[in-house]
């Protein structure tokens, strides 16, 4: 990896240049909540002033720019006795600015399933490869436990990564494209002093983590505790509203339905992100539901995040952003559940 220093004014310059010919998605303040805390979202921006890089976290993850909530897998034209299938992938490049390490890790995990494993998804890949990602370091967010999952720092999956050193950014350059983009503005070489400052900043961030979750041996524990009362306790609270999966940066499951236009001349096969917590997730024709109660559905979500994915890829699917915990009205959250599971074993 190469490193450079970028003055904040120059950075603004860079963003403005990027804005001129590309769509830019960046954290933007969307309001305040009832306690006065500011709320942010990754949204398309049209000027540098709309961007707030000091945001703590966004309510929604950046995944929807890679896995939209709704998308047409294919469309159909119906002729008299025949039909024609058409498939299109999104192609336009865009800038994803200001992603935190956990969000980039989430993309790396999605890559494993959607870009590299069985049946790579062209829909995902077309979006992923057309995203220019600029990440940024930040103070730990409230309730976030990324450190425990090793996702608080990131070494790849981005083009540029910024660490705020006060007047300037310490920039890690991970791709050739990132390097070339950076050539458009004035950068400085990194001095030893800068490096020391950078490492200090990293350390102070690292030390600031409050939430720790012990995920050691979790896959096995989950198997052992398959029938545990813990699930009953949390399952009773679950609203089965799917909010957790909607905001989660790594939840990718979906449902497909087909639609026909009112003139019956065209149709579409529509993919919609789903949630394993929704009541009919595993219902089959005839009405049999393989996961009829909240408890089993909730358990399954944790099972997939912390056991199934580990089995397949040697790492959990969760990045510890705690978005699901924050969004949940019933206050169901991974740190508490995992703690409960660990406690059961003592």
């Amino acid at each position: 990896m190469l490193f450079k220093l970028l003055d904040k004014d120059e950075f603004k310059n860079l963003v403005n240049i990027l804005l001129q010919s590309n769509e830019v998605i960046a954290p933007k303040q969307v309001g305040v909540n009832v306690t006065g805390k500011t709320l942010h979202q990754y949204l398309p921006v049209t000027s540098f002033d709309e961007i707030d890089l000091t945001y703590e976290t966004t309510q929604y993850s950046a995944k929807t720019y890679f896995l939209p909530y709704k998308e047409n897998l294919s469309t159909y034209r119906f002729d008299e006795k025949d039909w024609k299938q058409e498939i299109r992938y999104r192609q336009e490049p865009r800038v994803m600015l200001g992603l935190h390490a956990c969000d980039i890790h989430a993309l790396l995990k999605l890559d494993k399933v959607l870009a590299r494993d069985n049946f790579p998804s062209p829909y995902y890949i077309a979006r992923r490869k057309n995203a220019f990602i600029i990440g940024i370091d930040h103070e730990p967010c409230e309730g976030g436990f990324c450190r425990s999952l090793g996702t608080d720092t990131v070494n790849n999956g981005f083009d540029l990564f910024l660490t705020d050193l006060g007047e300037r950014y310490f920039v890690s350059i991970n791709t050739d494209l990132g390097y070339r983009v950076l050539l458009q503005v004035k950068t400085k070489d990194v001095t030893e002093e800068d490096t020391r400052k950078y490492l200090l900043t990293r350390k102070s961030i690292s030390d600031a983590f409050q939430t720790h979750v012990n995920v050691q041996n979790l896959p096995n524990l989950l198997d052992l505790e398959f029938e545990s009362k813990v699930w009953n306790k949390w399952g009773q609270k679950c609203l089965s509203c799917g909010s957790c999966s909607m905001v989660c940066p790594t939840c990718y499951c979906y449902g497909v339905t087909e639609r026909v236009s009112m003139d019956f001349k065209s149709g579409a096969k529509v993919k919609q992100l789903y949630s394993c917590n929704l009541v009919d997730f595993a219902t089959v024709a005839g009405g049999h539901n393989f996961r009829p109660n909240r408890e089993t559905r909730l358990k399954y979500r944790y099972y997939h995040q912390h056991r199934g994915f580990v089995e397949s890829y040697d790492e959990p699917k969760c990045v510890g952003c705690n978005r699901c915990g924050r969004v949940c009205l019933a206050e169901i959250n991974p740190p508490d559940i995992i703690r409960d599971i660990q406690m059961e074993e003592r």
Partner: protein
Amino acid sequence: MRYLSIEPTKPKVAVFDFTSCEGCELQLANKEETLVDFLKAVEIVNFREVSSAKSDDYEIAFIEGAVSRSDEIERLKKIREKARVLVALGCCACYGGVNKLKNAFDLSTANREIYGNYPKDSMPVRAIKDVVPVDMEIPGCPVNKEEIERIIQHLLLDINYNFPVYPVCVECKQKFNVCMFEKGQLCLGPIARAGCSAPCPTGGLGCYGCRGPAADPNYDEFFEIARRRGFAEQEVNERLSFFGGFNGIAMGVQK
């Protein structure tokens, strides 16, 4: 769409209104983009709000509104006899709708106060299914025209119309909304049935549950959340009773 060699029919459709605001009927004339195609797909033979043609020869009857007067019962039963398929259109037809709120009051007092010496005929509000069997329901206040279209497509060509049974929160999230609870407002989203695309939270109004309850709603936890966030029982119960879909569900009532 004849690639399956199934010939589509052009069914005769009638639309009838009972006690309601006629907003759901109005939706039939809305969604202007597809209105012409819609009108071409079916033969509307009886639709008083937009046509003076009247025919008693129909297969599909859309019923808007609830039943709140004795003559409506008779009218409804006659329609049921004629229609092969009876579709309850909108929240009033499916659940009684806001009309049902009057059931909480004494009718004769209400009559006296509003109509003085000339009391009008009226009775406690009932949903359509409480009077005659209903084949399909399109909930919502008002209904979502897209769902009407899908019902029509289903009746014409067996096309799928499985409306969502999950809660409004799913669709609300898919609209990138900040949760109403986060803004300090009450919302029935977690227990109300989706399918509307969450216009209310998107427009800054907590859901009132016009589509009725989602499948297997978690009332206990919902009440717990409302309590924790400081919403009064009265407020929650006003919401729940608003559209008639959460019949008999109330916070603070021992089960």
